[in-house]
């Protein structure tokens, strides 16, 4: 199945470092392999009681009344809350680190007000002595609903006369508000050049429509929270989250508290992938705590996770591209209609930034539609929006290559975006690695390996994710034994506390064992935006680098003072302070450290960043498949993932991100989807029928890390967490096409779908 002699490979690593680029064991490793690590569901406090949430059985309904009296009378129930316990959000907006959003969307998602907009929408909650009691008590809450017709797809929701989810949602049309009541929250457009002229210049035009199903991030740890509303009015929350500051700010806004009265401690997190950025149960648990006088823990069931938290948008996408016979792309047009779920905010803007980003095309038009439907309010899922878009674009690009009779990687190379290429949404690319990724794919042994046998095919695809910067803070304290403690606020989903520590260690010339990193609560470190957007190694890493430099600069001054020389004559090289004024003064970091307290006090370095200089990342796949033509089952024979990491701070973690994103992309491509019945009920809300890949469904995932240094980071790092999920569905579609000559336009490409496409191609009708 895989090449037994595989060694992970790296291309274009141009600079070597002492710590950066090595593979130390993570600092939280012992805790994680012994079961000691505390995840949110493991938290316990004296007097802890348990909460449970009542969720709507209807996809769309008006709430006529809620009677909680029987639940309140249950002997084990300590508190009940409904939407009546939270203030209306009115027109307030909040900034959760990625732009302004209406607080009402979040607050009304946390507990439904007036209407329920999806099956699973939270309606009320109880807290009781035990989880079993709380679940029993939920059955005693009587809610009277007036069911309304649901709309379940973007095209359905966009039709004239469609059932409307909100009575105050009007379309923002090309940036301008309108009076049109609609399920389309916004329609925006990006334009570059002259699209009509572009298509007129084309020798070959291809145009297709695609559909992708709703899929969930599928983190193994369900959402959980423990909240204590203390007697002094301060709220403490321990929660599984990618963004403790987001939880703090949103919870404070919903509960009308100043943020100084709310402290959020991020527990170890069992996966997020974007799905643990939104707020769901923290304000509810806090209110239950206030009403009961106890700390309250809520842990979601798996069904609640699938039905009550944000999956990623399903979408309907049209792509049209024009190319000249010599292989030059001249025009590209896309229409991206994305399902936002119950509230506006589908990740269609990021999709529009990525859909054609890999290619330098002079004439582009992209129309994006943010459409509400009666499904859970969508959340980010690893490069949100881009995977759907690439499924469309890469299909057309590969089809163009086939029609022109050129190699699919060559066609991409001939049009690849480079430094200076302008994206249709505006920005010009700085130094990027699109060409290098494609060249690495072309020269990789996988690309030229023979693939023989019937029903076998090879596919390729690439994708782009812009990555984020956003604010991060970091403090570093010097210990008397020459070690440092480093404090940061980015929940560690994949080893980042170590890759951040490695960057500080590199600056200070310390071995990684001498750095003790911690992820801390919102009272203990400066504002830090979410762990997401592939930003942590880049931005929090940069904060650590600057905090380390701050330490270094303070210690230089301290050495100078000890030596009685000018600080500008003291240098720091490979962990040693050297006085360069003709004297022989030298002192190692470990020699200076114990002298700090007595010579002016402890040294603490700090930094707060919101960095520009973000480096986008390109990713690519080569995949070989074999199709069983009698069942439509797709077996992956070989898979190689390519990605530009800029500089792999910890290569094992970069490989891990590439492999994990690939696995998710494969699940998205081949099996995962929300089966909705016409009433808007998810029929497969369990991990039995929401089918994520098992260890038996995947081969080894070979990786090739390309390093085109990002000029915006001292070590050249680019974010790597996300771009890797983008190519797999497109690469698999290409491979399936080459194996059995069918054109899959819908995700997932499950066995039934592949079989039906084969039948259609063969004209089988029975």
């Amino acid at each position: 199945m895989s090449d037994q002699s595989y060694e992970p490979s790296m291309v274009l690593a141009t600079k070597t470092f002492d710590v950066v680029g090595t593979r130390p064991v993570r600092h939280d490793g012992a805790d994680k392999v012994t079961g000691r690590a505390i995840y949110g569901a493991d938290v316990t406090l004296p007097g802890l009681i348990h909460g449970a949430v009542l969720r709507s059985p209807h996809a769309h309904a008006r709430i006529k009344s809620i009677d909680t009296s029987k639940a309140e009378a249950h002997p084990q129930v300590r508190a009940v809350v409904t939407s009546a316990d939270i203030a209306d959000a009115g027109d307030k907006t909040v900034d959760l680190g990625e732009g302004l959003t209406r607080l009402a969307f979040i607050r009304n998602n946390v507990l439904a007000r007036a209407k329920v907009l999806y099956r699973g929408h939270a309606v009320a909650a109880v807290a009781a002595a035990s989880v079993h009691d709380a679940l029993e008590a939920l059955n005693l809450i009587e809610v009277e609903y007036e069911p309304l017709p649901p709309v379940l797809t973007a095209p359905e929701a966009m039709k004239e006369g469609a059932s409307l989810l909100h009575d105050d949602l009007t379309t923002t049309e090309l940036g301008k508000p309108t009076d049109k009541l609609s399920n389309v929250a916004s329609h925006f457009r990006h334009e570059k050049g002259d699209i009509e002229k572009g298509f007129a210049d084309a020798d070959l035009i291809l145009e297709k429509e695609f559909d992708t199903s709703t899929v969930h991030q599928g983190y193994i740890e369900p959402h959980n929270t423990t909240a204590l509303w203390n007697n002094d009015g301060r709220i403490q929350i321990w929660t599984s989250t990618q963004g403790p500051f987001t939880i703090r700010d949103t919870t404070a806004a919903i509960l009308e508290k100043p943020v100084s009265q709310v402290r959020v401690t991020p527990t170890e997190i069992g996966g997020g992938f974007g799905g643990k950025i939104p707020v769901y149960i923290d304000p509810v648990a806090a209110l239950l705590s206030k009403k009961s006088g106890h700390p309250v823990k809520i842990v979601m069931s798996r069904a609640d996770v699938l039905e009550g938290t944000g999956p990623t948008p399903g979408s309907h996408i049209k792509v049209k591209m024009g190319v000249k016979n010599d292989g030059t792309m001249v025009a590209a047009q896309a229409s991206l209609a994305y399902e936002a779920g119950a509230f506006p905010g589908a990740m269609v803007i990021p999709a529009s930034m990525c859909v054609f980003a890999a290619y330098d095309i002079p004439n582009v038009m992209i129309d994006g539609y943010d459409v509400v439907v009666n499904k859970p309010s969508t959340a980010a899922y690893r490069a949100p929006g881009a995977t759907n878009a690439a499924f469309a674009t890469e299909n057309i690009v590969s089809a163009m290559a086939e029609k022109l009779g050129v190699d699919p990687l060559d066609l991409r190379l001939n049009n690849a975006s480079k430094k200076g290429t302008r994206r249709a949404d505006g920005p010009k690319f700085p130094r990027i690695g699109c060409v290098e990724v494609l060249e690495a794919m072309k020269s990789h042994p996988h690309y030229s390996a023979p693939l023989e046998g019937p029903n076998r095919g090879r596919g390729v695809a690439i994708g782009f994710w812009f990555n984020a910067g956003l604010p991060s803070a970091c403090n570093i304290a010097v210990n008397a034994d020459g070690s440092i403690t480093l404090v940061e606020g980015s929940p560690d989903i994949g080893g980042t506390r170590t890759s951040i520590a490695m960057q500080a260690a590199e600056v200070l010339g310390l071995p990684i064992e001498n750095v003790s990193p911690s992820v801390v609560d919102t009272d203990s470190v400066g504002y830090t935006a979410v762990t997401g957007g592939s930003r942590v190694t880049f931005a929090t890493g940069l904060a650590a680098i600057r905090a380390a430099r701050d330490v270094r600069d303070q210690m230089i001054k301290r050495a100078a003072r000890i030596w009685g020389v000018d600080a500008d004559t003291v240098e720091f090289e490979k962990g040693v302070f050297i006085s360069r004024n003709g004297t022989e003064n030298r002192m190692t970091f470990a020699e200076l450290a114990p002298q700090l307290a007595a010579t002016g006090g402890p040294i603490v370095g700090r930094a707060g960043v919101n960095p520009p200089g973000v480096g986008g990342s390109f990713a690519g796949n080569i995949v070989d498949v074999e199709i069983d033509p009698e069942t439509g089952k797709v077996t992956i024979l070989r898979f190689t993932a390519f990605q530009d990491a800029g500089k792999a701070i910890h290569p094992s973690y970069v490989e891990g991100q590439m492999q994990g994103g690939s696995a998710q992309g494969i699940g998205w491509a081949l099996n995962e989807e929300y089966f909705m019945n016409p009433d808007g009920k998810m029929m497969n809300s369990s991990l039995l029928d929401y089918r994520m890949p098992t260890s038996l469904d995947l081969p080894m995932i070979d990786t090739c890390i390309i390093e085109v240094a990002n000029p915006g980071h001292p070590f050249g790092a680019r974010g790597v967490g996300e771009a890797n999920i983008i190519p797999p569905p497109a690469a698999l579609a290409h491979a399936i096409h080459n194996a059995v000559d069918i054109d899959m336009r819908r995700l997932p490409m499950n066995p039934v779908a592949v079989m039906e496409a084969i039948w259609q191609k063969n004209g089988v009708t029975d």
Partner: protein
Amino acid sequence: MPRKVQVQTKLNGEQVEFLCEPRQSLLEVLRDELGLTGTKEGCNDGNCGACTVMFDGRIVTSCLVLAVEAEGKEITTVEGIAAGNELHPIQQCFLEGAALQCGVCTPGILVAAKALLDQDSNPSEEKIRFWLANNLCRCTGYDKIVRSVQAAAEKMQEAR
């Protein structure tokens, strides 16, 4: 008030006793009554494997075992894998091989992998993947997990 049941069992090599309701799963009792929170809940219906423990010599999903069934049995959880202060080779190899990212599936996978290596000292890649198919991991794509199990097998063979 309905009565709880008293259960005596051997857990990670030690005799323990607890009270539980018949409806409580072994997973619930391990975590909530016995304070062993290493075993995780991911789905509560046997489909993710995060709650895997050794039960009477076999790996099982403890969410589908009633705590009362533990009477007289032998149970090993992730907390019982290390030998005192020394990590077991499977734990060490997982750390060196970066076979975990978020780590929440790791306890279940460690228990399952150790059970495999205790009965098959040199499993093939296919065998490892088949054995672990009841343990979902969403972060790693399983590649480094499989390689780390292979590395642990080698390490354990050298130690013999």
